[in-house]
Protein backbone atom coordinates (compact mmCIF):
# COMPACT_ATOMS: atom_id res chain seq x y z
CA UNK A 1 0.00 0.00 0.00
CA UNK A 2 0.97 3.59 -0.38
CA UNK A 3 3.02 5.32 2.30
CA UNK A 4 1.09 7.14 5.00
CA UNK A 5 2.77 10.47 4.27
CA UNK A 6 1.63 10.33 0.64
CA UNK A 7 -1.94 9.65 1.73
CA UNK A 8 -1.84 12.64 4.10
CA UNK A 9 -0.46 14.79 1.29
CA UNK A 10 -3.33 13.63 -0.93
CA UNK A 11 -5.84 14.30 1.81
CA UNK A 12 -4.89 17.91 2.47
CA UNK A 13 -3.64 18.61 -1.03
CA UNK A 14 -6.99 17.85 -2.58
CA UNK A 15 -8.89 20.01 -0.10
CA UNK A 16 -6.45 22.83 -0.82
CA UNK A 17 -7.00 22.41 -4.56
CA UNK A 18 -10.77 22.44 -4.10
CA UNK A 19 -10.65 25.66 -2.13
CA UNK A 20 -8.23 27.22 -4.59
CA UNK A 21 -10.86 26.65 -7.25
CA UNK A 22 -13.42 28.39 -5.09
CA UNK A 23 -11.13 31.36 -4.52
CA UNK A 24 -10.51 31.58 -8.26
CA UNK A 25 -14.28 31.65 -8.72
CA UNK A 26 -14.63 34.32 -6.04
CA UNK A 27 -12.08 36.47 -7.83
CA UNK A 28 -14.34 36.40 -10.89
CA UNK A 29 -17.35 37.30 -8.75
CA UNK A 30 -15.37 40.16 -7.24
CA UNK A 31 -14.23 41.44 -10.60
CA UNK A 32 -17.86 41.56 -11.65
CA UNK A 33 -18.97 43.38 -8.52
CA UNK A 34 -16.22 45.98 -8.24
CA UNK A 35 -14.34 45.94 -11.52
CA UNK A 36 -17.36 47.18 -13.39
CA UNK A 37 -16.30 45.16 -16.39
CA UNK A 38 -19.23 42.95 -16.98
CA UNK A 39 -22.65 42.26 -15.61
CA UNK A 40 -23.97 45.58 -16.69
CA UNK A 41 -25.61 46.41 -19.89
CA UNK A 42 -22.75 48.01 -21.68
CA UNK A 43 -24.07 50.15 -24.44
CA UNK A 44 -21.10 52.50 -24.38
CA UNK A 45 -19.78 53.07 -27.86
CA UNK A 46 -16.08 53.91 -28.19
CA UNK A 47 -16.70 57.61 -28.59
CA UNK A 48 -18.34 57.90 -25.17
CA UNK A 49 -15.02 58.36 -23.43
CA UNK A 50 -14.18 61.39 -25.51
CA UNK A 51 -17.67 62.77 -25.04
CA UNK A 52 -17.35 62.30 -21.31
CA UNK A 53 -14.18 64.35 -21.23
CA UNK A 54 -15.80 67.15 -23.17
CA UNK A 55 -19.13 67.12 -21.40
CA UNK A 56 -17.68 66.96 -17.91
CA UNK A 57 -19.52 64.89 -15.35
CA UNK A 58 -22.61 63.85 -17.23
CA UNK A 59 -24.82 61.06 -15.87
CA UNK A 60 -23.43 57.60 -16.55
CA UNK A 61 -26.21 55.23 -15.61
CA UNK A 62 -29.92 54.91 -15.89
CA UNK A 63 -31.19 53.09 -12.81
CA UNK A 64 -34.62 51.63 -12.21
CA UNK A 65 -35.53 52.56 -8.64
CA UNK A 66 -39.05 51.15 -8.35
CA UNK A 67 -41.30 48.72 -10.15
CA UNK A 68 -40.86 45.15 -11.35
CA UNK A 69 -37.47 45.82 -12.95
CA UNK A 70 -36.14 47.57 -9.84
CA UNK A 71 -32.36 47.32 -9.60
CA UNK A 72 -31.75 47.18 -13.33
CA UNK A 73 -28.97 49.51 -14.40
CA UNK A 74 -28.17 50.60 -17.91
CA UNK A 75 -24.87 52.23 -18.77
CA UNK A 76 -25.46 55.32 -20.84
CA UNK A 77 -23.66 55.97 -24.06
CA UNK A 78 -24.30 58.21 -26.99
CA UNK A 79 -27.27 56.26 -28.18
CA UNK A 80 -30.83 57.02 -27.27
CA UNK A 81 -32.52 54.77 -24.74
CA UNK A 82 -35.87 53.48 -25.85
CA UNK A 83 -38.33 52.44 -23.14
CA UNK A 84 -41.50 50.46 -23.73
CA UNK A 85 -43.12 47.10 -24.01
CA UNK A 86 -41.75 46.34 -27.47
CA UNK A 87 -39.14 43.58 -27.51
CA UNK A 88 -36.52 45.76 -29.16
CA UNK A 89 -36.63 48.48 -26.51
CA UNK A 90 -33.47 49.09 -24.51
CA UNK A 91 -35.55 48.69 -21.36
CA UNK A 92 -38.38 46.24 -21.93
CA UNK A 93 -41.28 46.93 -19.58
CA UNK A 94 -43.97 44.39 -18.77
CA UNK A 95 -46.47 46.78 -17.39
CA UNK A 96 -50.09 47.14 -18.40
CA UNK A 97 -49.76 50.89 -18.03
CA UNK A 98 -46.86 51.20 -20.47
CA UNK A 99 -47.20 51.53 -24.22
CA UNK A 100 -45.12 49.46 -26.62
CA UNK A 101 -43.00 52.50 -27.49
CA UNK A 102 -43.44 54.62 -24.44
CA UNK A 103 -40.62 57.10 -24.00
CA UNK A 104 -37.15 57.92 -25.23
CA UNK A 105 -34.11 59.37 -23.52
CA UNK A 106 -31.76 61.19 -25.84
CA UNK A 107 -28.31 62.64 -25.39
CA UNK A 108 -27.70 66.17 -26.60
CA UNK A 109 -24.15 67.27 -25.85
CA UNK A 110 -23.88 65.39 -22.59
CA UNK A 111 -27.36 66.40 -21.39
CA UNK A 112 -30.19 63.89 -21.36
CA UNK A 113 -33.68 64.72 -22.49
CA UNK A 114 -36.78 62.65 -21.93
CA UNK A 115 -39.44 62.57 -24.56
CA UNK A 116 -42.82 60.89 -24.54
CA UNK A 117 -43.50 58.89 -27.70
CA UNK A 118 -47.25 59.38 -27.63
CA UNK A 119 -47.93 56.91 -24.85
CA UNK A 120 -51.44 56.28 -23.56
CA UNK A 121 -50.80 56.85 -19.88
CA UNK A 122 -48.02 59.37 -20.11
CA UNK A 123 -44.52 59.84 -18.78
CA UNK A 124 -43.90 61.94 -15.71
CA UNK A 125 -40.75 63.84 -14.79
CA UNK A 126 -41.09 64.62 -11.09
CA UNK A 127 -44.81 65.46 -10.99
CA UNK A 128 -44.93 67.02 -14.40
CA UNK A 129 -46.35 65.22 -17.40
CA UNK A 130 -43.84 65.16 -20.21
CA UNK A 131 -45.19 66.91 -23.30
CA UNK A 132 -42.17 67.94 -25.33
CA UNK A 133 -38.53 66.93 -24.70
CA UNK A 134 -37.52 67.87 -21.15
CA UNK A 135 -34.05 68.13 -19.64
CA UNK A 136 -33.49 65.46 -16.97
CA UNK A 137 -31.23 66.26 -14.03
CA UNK A 138 -29.47 63.38 -12.26
CA UNK A 139 -31.64 62.01 -9.45
CA UNK A 140 -34.87 63.37 -10.90
CA UNK A 141 -37.47 60.57 -10.98
CA UNK A 142 -39.00 59.62 -14.32
CA UNK A 143 -42.20 57.65 -13.84
CA UNK A 144 -43.70 55.29 -16.43
CA UNK A 145 -46.59 53.21 -15.11
CA UNK A 146 -45.25 51.46 -12.05
CA UNK A 147 -41.63 51.93 -13.07
CA UNK A 148 -39.51 54.80 -11.74
CA UNK A 149 -36.16 55.57 -13.38
CA UNK A 150 -33.46 58.03 -12.56
CA UNK A 151 -30.13 59.12 -13.96
CA UNK A 152 -27.07 58.63 -11.81
CA UNK A 153 -23.56 59.89 -12.38
Amino acid at each position, binding site marked *: *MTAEIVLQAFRFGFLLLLWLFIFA*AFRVVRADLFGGRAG*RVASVPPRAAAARKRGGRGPRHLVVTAGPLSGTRITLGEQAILIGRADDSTLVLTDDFASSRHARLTNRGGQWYVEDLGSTNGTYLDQQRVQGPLLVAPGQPIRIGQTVLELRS
Partner: protein
Amino acid sequence: MSGPGTDPRASAAGTSTPTRRNTELALLGFAVVLTITAQCIVDITVTGSLSPEIATFSLWYTALWVVAHLVVRRWAAYADPLLLPCVAVLVGLGLTMIHRLDIAASQVGGESTGEDAPVQLLWATIGLALFVAVLLIVRDHRMLARLAYTLALLGLVLLAIPAALPSSISEVNGAKLWIRVGGFSIQPGEFAKICLIVFFAAYLVEKRDVLALASRRVLRLELPRGRDLGPVLAAWVVSILVLVFERDLGSSLLLFGIFVVMLYVATERASWLVIGLLLFAGGAFLAYQLFGHVRVRVDTWLDPFAYADEGGYQIVQSLFGLGTGGLFGAGLGGGRPDQVPVAKSDFIAAAIGEELGLFGLVAVIVLYLILVERGLRTSLIVRDGFGKLLAAGLSFAVAWQVFVVLGGVTGLLPLTGLTTPFLAYGGSSLVANFGLVALLVRISDAARRPSAPPPAPPPKLVDAPTEVVRP
Protein backbone atom coordinates in the same frame (compact mmCIF):
# COMPACT_ATOMS: atom_id res chain seq x y z
CA MET B 1 -14.54 52.57 -13.21
CA SER B 2 -12.90 51.01 -16.20
CA GLY B 3 -15.98 50.16 -18.16
CA PRO B 4 -15.73 48.64 -21.59
CA GLY B 5 -15.08 51.45 -23.93
CA THR B 6 -13.27 53.89 -21.63
CA ASP B 7 -10.29 53.34 -23.86
CA PRO B 8 -11.42 53.29 -27.46
CA ARG B 9 -8.34 51.58 -28.82
CA ALA B 10 -8.46 48.84 -26.22
CA SER B 11 -12.02 47.96 -27.09
CA ALA B 12 -11.29 48.20 -30.78
CA ALA B 13 -8.45 45.74 -30.33
CA GLY B 14 -10.83 43.47 -28.46
CA THR B 15 -8.85 43.34 -25.22
CA SER B 16 -11.67 44.63 -23.06
CA THR B 17 -14.51 42.65 -24.56
CA PRO B 18 -16.63 41.60 -21.63
CA THR B 19 -17.49 38.12 -22.83
CA ARG B 20 -15.18 36.51 -20.24
CA ARG B 21 -14.97 33.31 -22.25
CA ASN B 22 -11.26 32.95 -21.48
CA THR B 23 -11.96 33.15 -17.75
CA GLU B 24 -14.46 30.36 -18.25
CA LEU B 25 -11.96 28.29 -20.21
CA ALA B 26 -9.30 28.68 -17.49
CA LEU B 27 -11.73 27.73 -14.73
CA LEU B 28 -13.03 24.78 -16.75
CA GLY B 29 -9.45 23.60 -17.17
CA PHE B 30 -9.00 23.88 -13.41
CA ALA B 31 -12.22 21.93 -12.84
CA VAL B 32 -11.16 19.12 -15.16
CA VAL B 33 -7.72 18.92 -13.52
CA LEU B 34 -9.43 18.78 -10.12
CA THR B 35 -11.62 15.89 -11.26
CA ILE B 36 -8.78 13.89 -12.77
CA THR B 37 -6.66 14.47 -9.66
CA ALA B 38 -9.49 13.19 -7.49
CA GLN B 39 -9.85 10.07 -9.64
CA CYS B 40 -6.11 9.36 -9.44
CA ILE B 41 -6.08 9.86 -5.66
CA VAL B 42 -8.97 7.42 -5.27
CA ASP B 43 -7.23 4.79 -7.42
CA ILE B 44 -3.87 5.11 -5.68
CA THR B 45 -5.35 5.18 -2.18
CA VAL B 46 -7.67 2.23 -2.59
CA THR B 47 -5.84 -0.08 -5.00
CA GLY B 48 -2.27 1.22 -4.88
CA SER B 49 -2.05 1.80 -8.62
CA LEU B 50 -3.83 3.73 -11.34
CA SER B 51 -6.63 1.86 -13.04
CA PRO B 52 -6.30 1.46 -16.82
CA GLU B 53 -9.57 3.28 -17.42
CA ILE B 54 -8.26 6.55 -16.04
CA ALA B 55 -6.85 7.67 -19.41
CA THR B 56 -10.14 7.04 -21.20
CA PHE B 57 -12.02 8.80 -18.43
CA SER B 58 -9.72 11.83 -18.50
CA LEU B 59 -9.96 12.21 -22.25
CA TRP B 60 -13.72 11.74 -22.25
CA TYR B 61 -14.32 14.19 -19.41
CA THR B 62 -12.02 16.80 -20.95
CA ALA B 63 -13.71 16.41 -24.31
CA LEU B 64 -17.11 16.89 -22.67
CA TRP B 65 -16.24 20.32 -21.32
CA VAL B 66 -14.27 21.39 -24.37
CA VAL B 67 -17.41 20.78 -26.41
CA ALA B 68 -19.54 22.63 -23.85
CA HIS B 69 -17.14 25.56 -23.87
CA LEU B 70 -16.97 25.77 -27.66
CA VAL B 71 -20.73 25.67 -27.96
CA VAL B 72 -21.10 28.46 -25.41
CA ARG B 73 -18.34 30.46 -27.10
CA ARG B 74 -20.10 30.20 -30.43
CA TRP B 75 -23.77 30.47 -29.49
CA ALA B 76 -23.92 32.24 -26.14
CA ALA B 77 -20.76 34.31 -26.13
CA TYR B 78 -21.75 36.64 -23.31
CA ALA B 79 -22.95 33.94 -20.90
CA ASP B 80 -21.89 33.97 -17.30
CA PRO B 81 -18.36 32.56 -16.94
CA LEU B 82 -18.93 30.74 -13.65
CA LEU B 83 -21.96 28.58 -14.36
CA LEU B 84 -20.17 25.88 -16.36
CA PRO B 85 -17.02 25.54 -14.20
CA CYS B 86 -19.08 25.08 -11.02
CA VAL B 87 -21.16 22.41 -12.73
CA ALA B 88 -17.96 20.75 -14.02
CA VAL B 89 -16.50 20.47 -10.52
CA LEU B 90 -19.75 19.16 -9.05
CA VAL B 91 -20.25 16.54 -11.77
CA GLY B 92 -16.58 15.57 -11.47
CA LEU B 93 -16.79 15.16 -7.71
CA GLY B 94 -19.94 13.10 -8.11
CA LEU B 95 -18.28 10.85 -10.70
CA THR B 96 -15.29 10.41 -8.40
CA MET B 97 -17.40 9.39 -5.43
CA ILE B 98 -19.43 6.98 -7.56
CA HIS B 99 -16.20 5.49 -8.93
CA ARG B 100 -14.91 5.18 -5.39
CA LEU B 101 -18.09 3.42 -4.24
CA ASP B 102 -17.84 1.10 -7.26
CA ILE B 103 -14.40 0.02 -6.11
CA ALA B 104 -15.65 -0.46 -2.55
CA ALA B 105 -18.53 -2.61 -3.80
CA SER B 106 -16.26 -4.79 -5.95
CA GLN B 107 -13.84 -5.26 -3.04
CA VAL B 108 -16.55 -6.35 -0.65
CA GLY B 109 -17.72 -8.61 -3.43
CA GLY B 110 -21.08 -10.28 -2.95
CA GLU B 111 -23.89 -8.92 -5.05
CA SER B 112 -21.88 -6.45 -7.08
CA THR B 113 -24.20 -4.75 -9.50
CA GLY B 114 -21.51 -3.69 -11.92
CA GLU B 115 -19.82 -0.35 -12.39
CA ASP B 116 -21.99 2.73 -12.07
CA ALA B 117 -19.40 5.41 -12.81
CA PRO B 118 -19.19 4.70 -16.57
CA VAL B 119 -22.98 4.77 -16.73
CA GLN B 120 -23.02 8.11 -14.97
CA LEU B 121 -20.40 9.43 -17.40
CA LEU B 122 -22.65 8.31 -20.23
CA TRP B 123 -25.56 10.16 -18.63
CA ALA B 124 -23.36 13.25 -18.31
CA THR B 125 -22.68 12.97 -22.04
CA ILE B 126 -26.39 12.74 -22.78
CA GLY B 127 -26.88 15.69 -20.45
CA LEU B 128 -24.35 17.65 -22.44
CA ALA B 129 -26.20 16.76 -25.64
CA LEU B 130 -29.35 18.21 -24.08
CA PHE B 131 -27.36 21.29 -23.01
CA VAL B 132 -26.18 21.85 -26.59
CA ALA B 133 -29.65 21.17 -27.99
CA VAL B 134 -31.28 23.68 -25.64
CA LEU B 135 -28.72 26.35 -26.50
CA LEU B 136 -29.19 25.74 -30.22
CA ILE B 137 -32.99 25.59 -30.19
CA VAL B 138 -33.73 28.30 -27.65
CA ARG B 139 -31.99 31.24 -29.29
CA ASP B 140 -33.91 33.74 -27.21
CA HIS B 141 -35.39 32.74 -23.88
CA ARG B 142 -38.45 34.87 -24.53
CA MET B 143 -39.65 32.36 -27.12
CA LEU B 144 -40.28 29.98 -24.22
CA ALA B 145 -42.94 32.32 -22.87
CA ARG B 146 -45.00 31.60 -25.97
CA LEU B 147 -44.83 27.87 -25.31
CA ALA B 148 -45.81 28.30 -21.68
CA TYR B 149 -49.15 26.51 -21.74
CA THR B 150 -47.81 23.66 -23.89
CA LEU B 151 -44.96 23.22 -21.44
CA ALA B 152 -47.38 23.30 -18.50
CA LEU B 153 -49.38 20.49 -20.08
CA LEU B 154 -46.21 18.56 -20.84
CA GLY B 155 -45.03 19.05 -17.26
CA LEU B 156 -48.29 17.85 -15.76
CA VAL B 157 -48.36 14.82 -18.08
CA LEU B 158 -44.77 13.94 -17.17
CA LEU B 159 -45.65 14.33 -13.52
CA ALA B 160 -48.72 12.13 -13.87
CA ILE B 161 -47.26 9.28 -15.97
CA PRO B 162 -45.70 7.31 -13.09
CA ALA B 163 -48.87 7.60 -11.04
CA ALA B 164 -50.90 6.13 -13.88
CA LEU B 165 -48.50 3.28 -14.68
CA PRO B 166 -48.70 -0.02 -12.80
CA SER B 167 -46.47 -0.27 -9.75
CA SER B 168 -44.31 -2.97 -11.34
CA ILE B 169 -43.02 -0.39 -13.81
CA SER B 170 -43.02 2.73 -11.74
CA GLU B 171 -42.28 1.81 -8.14
CA VAL B 172 -38.81 1.80 -6.60
CA ASN B 173 -38.41 1.64 -2.84
CA GLY B 174 -42.01 2.62 -2.24
CA ALA B 175 -41.94 5.80 -4.32
CA LYS B 176 -43.91 5.65 -7.55
CA LEU B 177 -42.04 8.18 -9.64
CA TRP B 178 -40.18 6.13 -12.20
CA ILE B 179 -40.62 4.73 -15.67
CA ARG B 180 -38.59 1.56 -15.90
CA VAL B 181 -38.19 0.14 -19.36
CA GLY B 182 -35.67 -2.61 -19.87
CA GLY B 183 -32.47 -1.68 -18.08
CA PHE B 184 -33.26 2.02 -18.08
CA SER B 185 -35.18 3.94 -15.54
CA ILE B 186 -36.12 7.58 -15.83
CA GLN B 187 -37.74 9.94 -13.40
CA PRO B 188 -40.00 12.13 -15.53
CA GLY B 189 -40.60 14.40 -12.55
CA GLU B 190 -37.14 15.92 -12.99
CA PHE B 191 -38.07 17.16 -16.45
CA ALA B 192 -41.54 18.17 -15.32
CA LYS B 193 -39.91 20.48 -12.81
CA ILE B 194 -38.22 22.57 -15.52
CA CYS B 195 -41.32 22.68 -17.73
CA LEU B 196 -43.38 23.89 -14.78
CA ILE B 197 -40.85 26.56 -13.80
CA VAL B 198 -41.03 27.97 -17.34
CA PHE B 199 -44.81 27.95 -17.12
CA PHE B 200 -44.86 29.59 -13.67
CA ALA B 201 -42.58 32.36 -14.94
CA ALA B 202 -44.72 33.09 -18.00
CA TYR B 203 -47.97 32.85 -16.07
CA LEU B 204 -46.84 35.06 -13.19
CA VAL B 205 -45.41 37.74 -15.49
CA GLU B 206 -48.82 37.98 -17.09
CA LYS B 207 -50.84 37.91 -13.91
CA ARG B 208 -48.65 39.60 -11.37
CA ASP B 209 -50.37 42.94 -11.46
CA VAL B 210 -53.65 41.37 -10.44
CA LEU B 211 -51.93 39.25 -7.79
CA ALA B 212 -49.93 42.18 -6.43
CA LEU B 213 -52.29 45.13 -6.60
CA ALA B 214 -55.71 43.89 -5.60
CA SER B 215 -55.32 43.34 -1.90
CA ARG B 216 -56.68 44.18 1.50
CA ARG B 217 -54.57 45.25 4.43
CA VAL B 218 -54.98 43.02 7.47
CA LEU B 219 -52.53 43.21 10.37
CA ARG B 220 -49.82 44.98 8.31
CA LEU B 221 -50.02 42.24 5.69
CA GLU B 222 -51.39 42.83 2.22
CA LEU B 223 -53.75 39.91 1.86
CA PRO B 224 -54.88 39.04 -1.64
CA ARG B 225 -58.54 38.74 -2.54
CA GLY B 226 -60.10 35.33 -2.13
CA ARG B 227 -60.48 34.64 -5.83
CA ASP B 228 -56.82 35.41 -6.48
CA LEU B 229 -55.86 32.51 -4.25
CA GLY B 230 -56.77 30.14 -7.09
CA PRO B 231 -53.30 29.57 -8.56
CA VAL B 232 -51.57 28.98 -5.25
CA LEU B 233 -54.33 26.58 -4.20
CA ALA B 234 -53.97 24.75 -7.52
CA ALA B 235 -50.22 24.36 -6.99
CA TRP B 236 -50.93 23.10 -3.48
CA VAL B 237 -53.46 20.55 -4.72
CA VAL B 238 -51.06 19.27 -7.40
CA SER B 239 -48.33 18.89 -4.77
CA ILE B 240 -50.68 16.97 -2.50
CA LEU B 241 -51.74 14.74 -5.40
CA VAL B 242 -48.08 13.94 -6.12
CA LEU B 243 -47.69 13.08 -2.47
CA VAL B 244 -50.72 10.81 -2.47
CA PHE B 245 -50.30 9.01 -5.77
CA GLU B 246 -46.52 8.86 -6.09
CA ARG B 247 -45.67 8.77 -2.40
CA ASP B 248 -42.87 11.21 -3.06
CA LEU B 249 -42.33 13.81 -0.37
CA GLY B 250 -39.46 15.45 -2.25
CA SER B 251 -41.11 16.39 -5.55
CA SER B 252 -44.16 17.54 -3.69
CA LEU B 253 -42.16 19.88 -1.47
CA LEU B 254 -40.02 21.06 -4.40
CA LEU B 255 -42.95 22.01 -6.63
CA PHE B 256 -44.86 23.86 -3.96
CA GLY B 257 -41.76 25.67 -2.67
CA ILE B 258 -40.79 26.82 -6.16
CA PHE B 259 -44.28 28.10 -6.88
CA VAL B 260 -44.60 30.05 -3.64
CA VAL B 261 -41.18 31.64 -3.99
CA MET B 262 -41.77 32.59 -7.63
CA LEU B 263 -45.09 34.11 -6.61
CA TYR B 264 -43.24 36.13 -3.97
CA VAL B 265 -40.55 37.22 -6.43
CA ALA B 266 -43.17 38.24 -8.98
CA THR B 267 -45.40 40.21 -6.65
CA GLU B 268 -43.02 41.43 -3.91
CA ARG B 269 -45.78 40.61 -1.41
CA ALA B 270 -44.60 38.84 1.74
CA SER B 271 -48.18 37.76 2.35
CA TRP B 272 -47.75 35.04 -0.29
CA LEU B 273 -44.94 33.52 1.76
CA VAL B 274 -47.16 33.53 4.84
CA ILE B 275 -50.02 31.96 2.91
CA GLY B 276 -47.62 29.40 1.44
CA LEU B 277 -46.25 28.50 4.85
CA LEU B 278 -49.76 28.12 6.27
CA LEU B 279 -50.80 25.89 3.38
CA PHE B 280 -47.59 23.90 3.80
CA ALA B 281 -48.20 23.49 7.52
CA GLY B 282 -51.75 22.32 6.84
CA GLY B 283 -50.61 19.90 4.15
CA ALA B 284 -47.78 18.58 6.29
CA PHE B 285 -50.12 17.99 9.23
CA LEU B 286 -52.66 16.19 7.02
CA ALA B 287 -49.94 14.07 5.41
CA TYR B 288 -48.57 13.12 8.79
CA GLN B 289 -52.00 12.03 9.97
CA LEU B 290 -53.00 10.18 6.82
CA PHE B 291 -49.92 8.54 5.30
CA GLY B 292 -47.76 5.92 6.95
CA HIS B 293 -44.69 6.65 4.85
CA VAL B 294 -44.69 10.29 5.86
CA ARG B 295 -45.04 9.37 9.53
CA VAL B 296 -42.06 6.99 9.27
CA ARG B 297 -39.93 9.76 7.77
CA VAL B 298 -40.88 12.24 10.47
CA ASP B 299 -40.37 9.76 13.31
CA THR B 300 -36.92 8.74 12.09
CA TRP B 301 -36.04 12.39 11.68
CA LEU B 302 -37.03 13.27 15.24
CA ASP B 303 -35.10 10.39 16.76
CA PRO B 304 -33.04 8.42 14.23
CA PHE B 305 -31.24 6.34 16.85
CA ALA B 306 -34.48 4.95 18.25
CA TYR B 307 -35.17 3.42 14.82
CA ALA B 308 -31.55 2.57 14.01
CA ASP B 309 -32.45 -0.99 13.05
CA GLU B 310 -35.27 -0.15 10.68
CA GLY B 311 -36.22 3.14 9.04
CA GLY B 312 -33.47 5.14 10.67
CA TYR B 313 -30.58 2.94 9.56
CA GLN B 314 -29.62 5.14 6.61
CA ILE B 315 -29.62 8.37 8.51
CA VAL B 316 -27.75 6.86 11.44
CA GLN B 317 -25.05 5.49 9.15
CA SER B 318 -24.89 8.84 7.39
CA LEU B 319 -24.40 10.67 10.70
CA PHE B 320 -21.69 8.20 11.73
CA GLY B 321 -20.00 8.75 8.38
CA LEU B 322 -20.05 12.53 8.78
CA GLY B 323 -18.72 12.13 12.31
CA THR B 324 -15.90 9.90 11.10
CA GLY B 325 -15.02 12.46 8.49
CA GLY B 326 -14.57 15.22 11.03
CA LEU B 327 -13.07 18.48 9.85
CA PHE B 328 -10.69 17.29 7.15
CA GLY B 329 -12.20 13.95 6.20
CA ALA B 330 -10.66 10.53 5.90
CA GLY B 331 -9.11 11.40 2.56
CA LEU B 332 -10.45 10.26 -0.81
CA GLY B 333 -10.62 6.49 -0.65
CA GLY B 334 -9.79 6.44 3.04
CA GLY B 335 -13.24 6.11 4.57
CA ARG B 336 -16.00 3.54 4.45
CA PRO B 337 -18.78 5.46 2.69
CA ASP B 338 -20.18 2.20 1.36
CA GLN B 339 -21.57 1.54 4.83
CA VAL B 340 -24.42 3.92 4.10
CA PRO B 341 -27.18 2.32 2.04
CA VAL B 342 -27.71 3.95 -1.40
CA ALA B 343 -24.64 6.12 -0.87
CA LYS B 344 -24.36 6.70 -4.62
CA SER B 345 -27.63 8.49 -5.07
CA ASP B 346 -29.48 9.81 -2.05
CA PHE B 347 -26.56 9.90 0.35
CA ILE B 348 -23.69 11.03 -1.85
CA ALA B 349 -23.33 14.12 0.32
CA ALA B 350 -22.68 11.84 3.31
CA ALA B 351 -19.96 10.03 1.33
CA ILE B 352 -18.35 13.36 0.45
CA GLY B 353 -18.61 14.50 4.06
CA GLU B 354 -16.90 11.36 5.23
CA GLU B 355 -14.01 11.43 2.78
CA LEU B 356 -13.46 15.17 2.40
CA GLY B 357 -14.68 16.23 5.82
CA LEU B 358 -16.49 19.39 6.82
CA PHE B 359 -14.14 21.50 4.70
CA GLY B 360 -14.91 19.42 1.62
CA LEU B 361 -18.65 19.41 2.20
CA VAL B 362 -18.68 23.16 2.79
CA ALA B 363 -16.67 23.60 -0.41
CA VAL B 364 -19.41 21.69 -2.25
CA ILE B 365 -22.08 23.87 -0.68
CA VAL B 366 -20.13 27.00 -1.64
CA LEU B 367 -19.98 25.73 -5.24
CA TYR B 368 -23.77 25.48 -5.23
CA LEU B 369 -23.89 28.91 -3.64
CA ILE B 370 -21.82 30.40 -6.46
CA LEU B 371 -24.04 28.68 -9.02
CA VAL B 372 -27.18 30.07 -7.39
CA GLU B 373 -25.63 33.52 -6.91
CA ARG B 374 -24.80 33.70 -10.59
CA GLY B 375 -28.34 32.65 -11.43
CA LEU B 376 -29.90 35.28 -9.18
CA ARG B 377 -27.50 37.90 -10.49
CA THR B 378 -28.59 37.00 -14.01
CA SER B 379 -32.13 37.45 -12.83
CA LEU B 380 -31.28 40.96 -11.56
CA ILE B 381 -29.59 42.22 -14.68
CA VAL B 382 -31.69 40.67 -17.42
CA ARG B 383 -34.04 43.25 -18.83
CA ASP B 384 -37.34 41.45 -19.33
CA GLY B 385 -39.69 40.30 -16.62
CA PHE B 386 -40.06 36.75 -17.92
CA GLY B 387 -36.30 36.24 -17.98
CA LYS B 388 -36.02 37.62 -14.46
CA LEU B 389 -38.62 35.27 -13.06
CA LEU B 390 -37.34 32.27 -15.00
CA ALA B 391 -33.74 32.77 -13.85
CA ALA B 392 -34.85 33.32 -10.26
CA GLY B 393 -37.06 30.22 -10.37
CA LEU B 394 -34.37 27.97 -11.86
CA SER B 395 -31.74 29.16 -9.37
CA PHE B 396 -34.12 28.76 -6.49
CA ALA B 397 -34.94 25.21 -7.63
CA VAL B 398 -31.26 24.29 -7.34
CA ALA B 399 -30.88 26.01 -3.98
CA TRP B 400 -34.04 24.47 -2.56
CA GLN B 401 -33.07 20.98 -3.69
CA VAL B 402 -29.59 21.27 -2.16
CA PHE B 403 -31.06 22.58 1.08
CA VAL B 404 -33.65 19.82 1.36
CA VAL B 405 -31.20 17.02 0.49
CA LEU B 406 -28.36 18.20 2.71
CA GLY B 407 -30.86 18.90 5.47
CA GLY B 408 -32.02 15.29 5.15
CA VAL B 409 -28.52 13.83 5.12
CA THR B 410 -27.42 15.83 8.16
CA GLY B 411 -30.60 15.19 10.11
CA LEU B 412 -31.86 18.77 10.00
CA LEU B 413 -34.96 17.91 7.96
CA PRO B 414 -36.89 14.69 7.36
CA LEU B 415 -35.58 12.58 4.47
CA THR B 416 -37.34 13.37 1.24
CA GLY B 417 -35.78 11.39 -1.58
CA LEU B 418 -34.81 14.40 -3.68
CA THR B 419 -31.54 14.11 -5.59
CA THR B 420 -28.48 16.27 -5.06
CA PRO B 421 -28.22 18.17 -8.35
CA PHE B 422 -25.19 17.18 -10.50
CA LEU B 423 -23.57 15.07 -7.77
CA ALA B 424 -25.87 12.13 -7.24
CA TYR B 425 -26.00 8.98 -9.34
CA GLY B 426 -29.09 9.07 -11.50
CA GLY B 427 -29.56 9.78 -15.16
CA SER B 428 -32.75 11.83 -15.22
CA SER B 429 -31.61 14.18 -12.52
CA LEU B 430 -28.26 14.80 -14.20
CA VAL B 431 -29.70 15.25 -17.69
CA ALA B 432 -32.51 17.50 -16.47
CA ASN B 433 -30.11 19.67 -14.50
CA PHE B 434 -27.90 20.08 -17.57
CA GLY B 435 -31.02 21.38 -19.31
CA LEU B 436 -31.63 23.75 -16.42
CA VAL B 437 -28.09 25.13 -16.64
CA ALA B 438 -28.49 25.54 -20.40
CA LEU B 439 -31.49 27.79 -19.78
CA LEU B 440 -29.53 29.81 -17.19
CA VAL B 441 -26.64 30.16 -19.66
CA ARG B 442 -29.04 31.34 -22.34
CA ILE B 443 -30.65 33.94 -20.07
CA SER B 444 -27.31 35.17 -18.74
CA ASP B 445 -26.10 35.56 -22.31
CA ALA B 446 -29.11 37.76 -23.03
CA ALA B 447 -28.54 39.68 -19.80
CA ARG B 448 -24.86 40.47 -20.36
CA ARG B 449 -24.89 40.98 -24.11
CA PRO B 450 -24.29 44.64 -24.96
CA SER B 451 -27.50 46.03 -26.31
CA ALA B 452 -27.47 46.63 -30.01
CA PRO B 453 -28.15 50.23 -30.93
CA PRO B 454 -31.94 50.42 -30.87
CA PRO B 455 -33.47 50.78 -34.30
CA ALA B 456 -34.87 54.22 -34.97
CA PRO B 457 -38.50 54.28 -33.90
CA PRO B 458 -40.87 54.57 -36.85
CA PRO B 459 -41.43 58.23 -37.55
CA LYS B 460 -44.78 59.45 -36.42
CA LEU B 461 -46.94 60.93 -39.08
CA VAL B 462 -47.25 64.20 -37.19
CA ASP B 463 -43.48 64.61 -36.93
CA ALA B 464 -42.66 63.55 -40.45
CA PRO B 465 -41.54 66.44 -42.59
CA THR B 466 -44.15 67.41 -45.10
CA GLU B 467 -43.20 66.94 -48.69
CA VAL B 468 -44.75 68.32 -51.71
CA VAL B 469 -45.64 65.45 -53.95
CA ARG B 470 -45.51 66.33 -57.57
CA PRO B 471 -47.24 64.12 -60.04
